[in-house]
């Protein structure tokens, strides 16, 4: 036990003292926050306004199509066509077709953005709809007052009922953000720290120090010491990140003028399919208002559990791979079967997150190969206790199994040189009776 402790200490200290650890720990949050606020700033300040000339107006567009003060303005100066629009100071020219054809054409020097295109289509549809309504006898004033009233008429407030029938405030956006964020974080850390374990084992093997160490401690102790030591590095890094992000974001938040946040909010709500483009500034507003709707204790607790157990599950497999290879190139091939389920889990998460209680997500969150990532994607939306419990038990059983198996592969592999090993052979070692 004492010896494992020595190994853990060495693995931990040599890594934490390393410059790259300090760099990644302190620079990453700063870069992230700069990136988030930078992108908000850019979104707000460098919004280009497209000037569109409308040609061949049948008459009603001029009155019913609205220029959008922040992004698009329509102009009905006659005599503008695709040859001279640029000279007259327009970015694009829109041709309205004759009759009932729906073949609207827009000419521009630069490809219009998807967003702009969608917005123009939207506005044209709205104008045609209004025109038709007016033709059927509805007055313009009536229309205006209806559209005024329907704007922001609904605020959908999803309350989730728990087992006792008590309603809880829920926020889909926040849950989505947490689910996806923690899923990604677990995905990245499992790969990063798993690879770190593998490199560490490979280093011991290629440096030929493994035999010296193994003549003092059991191979299994060496493997576990390394895995636990690196887990400690990971946890330290997370803690530092949480502290750093928290302090930095509150500092940065204080510096962002209220106006800018409001503007960001507006920008965001205008983006079609706004969810994906949730800008940080909006989140910031959201967080301020509805942070309390998430069960933070449960989420953080589960995050650390799934990070740790998921890491333990995979890192021993990475250690097994590290023990049988002598160079990085060889390891790529053997790593593939380990990376597959991790990547697969991430794909399931990103496609299934809109329906967190679907069958696919349920099974994904039970099977230990994928559960760390997928369960984290479900927890913010609420998961029955029995499912959470079962998933955790299965994951613990899973990592005990992979560690046991990897230990046997490691023991044989770490002293084996000059032989190319494949997974078939490794599994043979794992299940060989000793």
């Amino acid at each position, binding site marked *: 036990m004492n010896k494992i402790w020595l190994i853990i200490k060495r693995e931990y200290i*040599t890594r934490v003292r390393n410059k790259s650890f300090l760099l990644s720990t302190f620079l990453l949050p700063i870069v992230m926050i700069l990136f988030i606020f930078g992108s908000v700033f850019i979104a707000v300040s460098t919004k280009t306004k497209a000037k569109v000339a409308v040609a061949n107006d049948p008459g009603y567009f001029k009155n019913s199509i609205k220029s959008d003060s922040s992004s698009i303005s329509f102009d009905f100066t006659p005599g503008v066509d695709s040859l001279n629009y640029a000279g007259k100071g327009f970015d694009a020219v829109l041709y309205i077709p004759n009759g009932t054809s729906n073949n609207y054409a827009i000419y521009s020097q630069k490809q219009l953005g998807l967003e702009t295109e969608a917005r123009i289509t939207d506005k044209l549809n709205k104008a045609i709809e209004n025109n038709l309504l007016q033709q059927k006898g509805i007055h313009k004033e009536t229309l205006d007052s209806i559209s005024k009233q329907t704007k922001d008429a609904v605020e959908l407030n999803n309350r989730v009922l728990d087992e006792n029938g008590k309603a809880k405030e829920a926020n889909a956006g926040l849950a989505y953000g947490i689910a996806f964020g923690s899923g990604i974080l677990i995905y990245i850390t499992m790969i990063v720290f798993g690879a770190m374990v593998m490199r560490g084992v490979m*280093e011991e093997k290629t*440096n*030929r*120090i*493994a035999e010296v*160490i*193994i*003549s*003092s401690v059991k191979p299994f102790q060496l493997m576990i010491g390394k895995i636990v030591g690196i887990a400690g590095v990971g946890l330290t890094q997370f803690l530092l990140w949480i502290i750093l992000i928290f302090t930095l974001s509150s500092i940065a938040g204080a510096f962002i003028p209220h106006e800018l946040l409001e503007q960001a909010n507006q920008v965001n709500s205008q983006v079609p399919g706004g969810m994906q483009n949730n800008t940080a500034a909006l989140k910031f507003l959201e967080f301020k208002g509805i942070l309390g709707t998430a069960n933070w204790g449960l989420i953080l607790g589960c995050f650390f559990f799934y990070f740790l157990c998921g890491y333990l599950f995979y890192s021993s497999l990475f250690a097994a791979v590290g023990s049988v290879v002598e160079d990085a190139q060889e390891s790529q091939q053997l790593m593939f079967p380990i990376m597959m389920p991790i990547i697969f889990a991430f794909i399931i998460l990103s496609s299934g997150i809109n329906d967190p209680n679907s069958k696919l997500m349920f099974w994904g969150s039970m099977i230990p190969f994928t559960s760390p990532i997928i369960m984290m994607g479900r927890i913010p939306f609420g998961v029955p206790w029995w499912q959470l419990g079962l998933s955790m038990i299965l994951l613990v059983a899973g990592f005990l199994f992979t560690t046991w198996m990897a230990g046997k592969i490691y023991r044989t592999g770490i002293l084996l040189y000059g032989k190319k090993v494949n997974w078939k052979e490794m599994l043979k070692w794992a299940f060989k009776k000793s």
Partner: protein
Amino acid sequence: MSHILEVKNLKKYYATQKAVDEVSFSLEQGSIFGLLGPNGAGKTTLIRMITGIFFPDEGEILFNGKKFDPINDVVHIGYMPEERGLYKKMKIGEQAMYLAQLKGLSQKDAMAQVKDWFVKFEMQSWWNKKVQDLSKGMGQKLQFVTTVLHEPKLIILDEPFSGLDPVNSNLIKDEIYKLAKKGCSIIFSTHRMEQVEEICDHIILMNKGKKILDGTVNGVKQQFKENLFSIGLQQMPEVISSNAFKAIGKADHTLVVKINEGHTANEVLQHFIQQNNNITSFNEMLPSLNDIFIKLVEGTPLSRQFEKITE
């Protein structure tokens, strides 16, 4: 004499070969023991069983008179593998401390021992250097220090001198003698026969997993001697004919003779004295371990280095 290590009928078979096959030997306390054999003879496997890295398939290892218990006994063994290495990015002082503590030394004892050895080998100034900054020979010295600093009863050295200059070789050789005098037993595995002759008391030779030779260095030489003598003569005789011996090689003023079965060295001397030939030297030529090694391992004839006489 008490035996620190007894190995009885040790066997380890791999899927494709018998790595160690029925090997037995015993090692006295304070002796320096040579474990010889060509590449792939099974030395490393044998050593790994003695150090508890591998479990033997069959047979028994007694350590200090009791059945070898890897978990508790490894702290009394110091092993310097042939494929040696250190953590390249770790500082030397910390590395030595780490390895010492893994061998069960407390932090305080480890510090005292490491400092002691660093002074002995004039390595104090290296403490904060990293291994990657060391030359190969320096790394070797550090490796030797980490092998012996927990005062093991049994030290196993696999090719300890490879890559060392003569000065450092001697430094380590002297330490090996000192350790043996203090009661340490040393197993010394190498291909360098001249070092074995110089250092070892007792040797075994392994080939293809089997022990094929066991004895003291002198005993083995006597066992394999071919009654060869070299005689320094003032005049080289043209023709030599005697029942007692046969000339098998000559160079300058030295003649190499092989004494026939049932005859003695005196008869050779008599032969030349009767011819009034002045004898300047007379020596028995014992085979070198190198020759014995090659002969046993490859079955090649011995005196290849002499010019053949055409009679």
